[in-house]
């Protein structure tokens, strides 16, 4: 029996789905009724707390179980002709018929529960204004893989004939797979070590803040325990070291959980990425669906020369992040290889980035100077040396980072591709083919108009690119050209 035959009949999910649905229903119910619960706890009379609690938990559990089981039995999916058909709903039945050609991505998910029972979750995303997302909570792993293959092959196959008539063995011709990039444990450590530790540091700062607040609320006066100056210094050093070590550990931990066993492969005319320690995620994208490439590094990553690459597909802004493929720890030549596969050549190597107008920097420095004057005046009035020192530190950092940001900020366009570079200490590159643009715009403030400048705005189906302070005389012809390309290019943009 060919996969096409198997899925022609309405299918139920694997029974494991019941557990997953129970869990999800439980969460939804708890989220929706918590205000009533609080009222019930506070306002109600009679019965002690533990009885009420067990009643409540028991009640929710029973209700969510019944709802989940009903939901499980009323959920079926099938692939009929060129449509994925899902029927669902307990009280209000609904039938979703999704044309396979509309499918953007098919994501396979396997969390711990999935792994234990050897099942997978399948998520089907579509783009466009009618956002529909179909989630099949659990299918047997083998069956799920078959389904994914079937959906993919049908989507690729020519649907103009109206009927899908591929013989079973020809349905899944062995597609050539080529590993473009993979991450071993050593590289994973490097990626973790070169993370933006400040971000991890914030978690610790928030945690310490939380503890201090709790101590104060518990009536413990922290001031009483404050030791002498020498002790404070020593403590400070300890804290800094502990802070650094902890930040590092958090960064590495997060990296391992997210990117463990990362493999990025070329499959036919698309890419697939698999990664994750606890929850294994697999995201795939076809070349035509890819809108924008973005890669970035930071100061630390410049040493091993690695970048974070994200491949963005078309879709509503909210689900873009989920659908973008994040390839961690890739080298410049890996990015070049991907560009060669996508565009036929290493486009970014041939683009010369032009800086934006120097007035962008002047303006930033002007704003920072104003702020620092205000800060200094406040410090003077308060007679606080601490404030004045803090203002000075901030202003030096602001000046320096503005200058660095100006040096990084720029754009390039050779008529076929558009690229933007930005960053402060590291660099972030964005690259997109001009013909994939959705709309082109420019904005100008009175200050910009006085100096013949505009902010260029390029709308893509995977986000908006903005370049501030571009000479009007440069951008308007560029805009005309971009519009010309979009309006005449016959290639499929998604």
């Amino acid at each position, binding site marked *: 029996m060919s996969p096409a035959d198997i899925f022609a009949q309405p299918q139920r999910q694997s029974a494991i789905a019941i557990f997953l649905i129970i869990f999800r229903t439980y969460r939804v119910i708890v989220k929706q009724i918590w205000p009533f619960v609080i009222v019930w706890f506070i306002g109600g009379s009679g019965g002690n707390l533990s009885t009420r609690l067990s009643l409540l938990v028991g009640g929710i559990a029973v209700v969510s179980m019944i709802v989940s089981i009903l939901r499980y039995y009323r959920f079926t999916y099938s692939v009929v002709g060129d449509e994925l058909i899902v029927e669902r709903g307990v009280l209000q039945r609904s039938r979703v018929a999704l044309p396979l050609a509309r499918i953007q991505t098919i994501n396979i998910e396997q969390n711990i529960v999935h792994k234990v029972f050897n099942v997978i979750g399948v998520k089907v995303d579509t783009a466009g204004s009618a956002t529909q997302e179909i989630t099949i909570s659990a299918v047997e792993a083998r069956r799920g893989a078959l389904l994914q293959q079937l959906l993919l092959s049908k989507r690729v196959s020519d649907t103009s004939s109206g009927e899908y008539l591929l013989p079973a063995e020809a349905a899944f011709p062995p597609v050539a797979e080529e590993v473009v990039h993979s991450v071993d444990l050593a590289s994973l450590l490097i990626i973790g070590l070169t993370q933006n530790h400040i971000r991890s540091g914030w978690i610790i700062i928030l945690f310490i803040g939380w503890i201090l607040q709790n101590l104060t609320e518990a009536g413990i006066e922290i001031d009483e325990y404050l030791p002498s100056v020498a002790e404070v210094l020593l403590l400070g050093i300890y804290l800094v070291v502990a802070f650094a070590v902890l930040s590092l550990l958090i960064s590495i931990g997060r990296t391992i959980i997210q990117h463990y066993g990362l493999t990025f492969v070329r499959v036919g005319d698309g890419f697939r990425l698999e990664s994750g320690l606890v929850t294994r995620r697999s995201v795939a994208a076809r070349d035509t669906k890819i809108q924008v490439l973005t890669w970035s590094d930071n100061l630390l990553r410049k040493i091993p020369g690695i970048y974070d690459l994200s491949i963005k597909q078309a879709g509503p802004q909210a689900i873009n992040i989920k659908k973008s493929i994040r390839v961690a720890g890739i080298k410049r030549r890996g990015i070049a290889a991907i560009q060669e596969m996508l565009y036929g050549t290493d486009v970014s190597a041939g683009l010369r980035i032009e800086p934006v107008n120097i007035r962008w920097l002047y303006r930033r420095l002007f704003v920072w100077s104003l702020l620092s004057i205000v800060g200094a005046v406040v410090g003077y009035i308060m007679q606080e040396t601490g404030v004045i020192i803090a203002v000075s530190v901030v202003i030096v950092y602001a000046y320096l980072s503005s200058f660095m940001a100006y040096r990084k900020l720029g754009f390039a366009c050779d008529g076929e591709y558009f690229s933007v570079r930005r960053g402060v200490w590291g660099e972030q590159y964005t690259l997109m083919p001009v013909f994939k643009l959705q709309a082109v715009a420019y*904005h100008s403030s009175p200050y910009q108009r006085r100096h013949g400048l505009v902010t260029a705005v390029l709308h893509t*189906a995977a986000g908006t690119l903005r370049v501030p302070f571009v000479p009007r005389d440069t951008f308007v012809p560029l805009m005309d050209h971009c519009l010309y390309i979009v309006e005449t290019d016959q290639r499929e943009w998604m």
Partner: protein
Amino acid sequence: MDRAFTNDQLYDLPSVDDVNYVPVHRAYYQYRLWVTTLWLVIMLTGILVCYWLRWLGIQYVAEYLVAGWMLLAIAALYITHRGYGILGYAIRQHDVVFREGWIYRSIVAAPYVRVQHCEISQGPIARWLSLHQIEVFTAGGSGSDVTIPGLDLDTANRLRTYIIHKAGVNEPS
């Protein structure tokens, strides 16, 4: 090889700079004045109510607040007045161009080939003045959608039909 952008090798492209913008319906000028006035009245009412009820200590600074309100009113009405002159759209062969904003100006061009769908809508004040607006949606997120306000129903319908026809989108009417 450096491939900086040049425009020489191409023939003369029509420029968004040479576009003749069509102004929207005259009644839209009224509409904008009404909306601005409404906001200003709401704000003044707020100040006066606080003054009479002696809330927020406003009675001590009422003169300044009213003076500030008057300045704001003059500025807002003037900006609204000037903004109407800038507002305009151009239906070109392959795209629709829209310009707005007297102080912070913005010009958007959306090619028909990227249009997802078109919508005609109307708010309460616009209904009273028989004005409609047409929204042209692309896949580029809210910033790339072109909204042309202040159209009479006939113009809005004609624009919609034309844009849908050019976009090749089959839409239920």
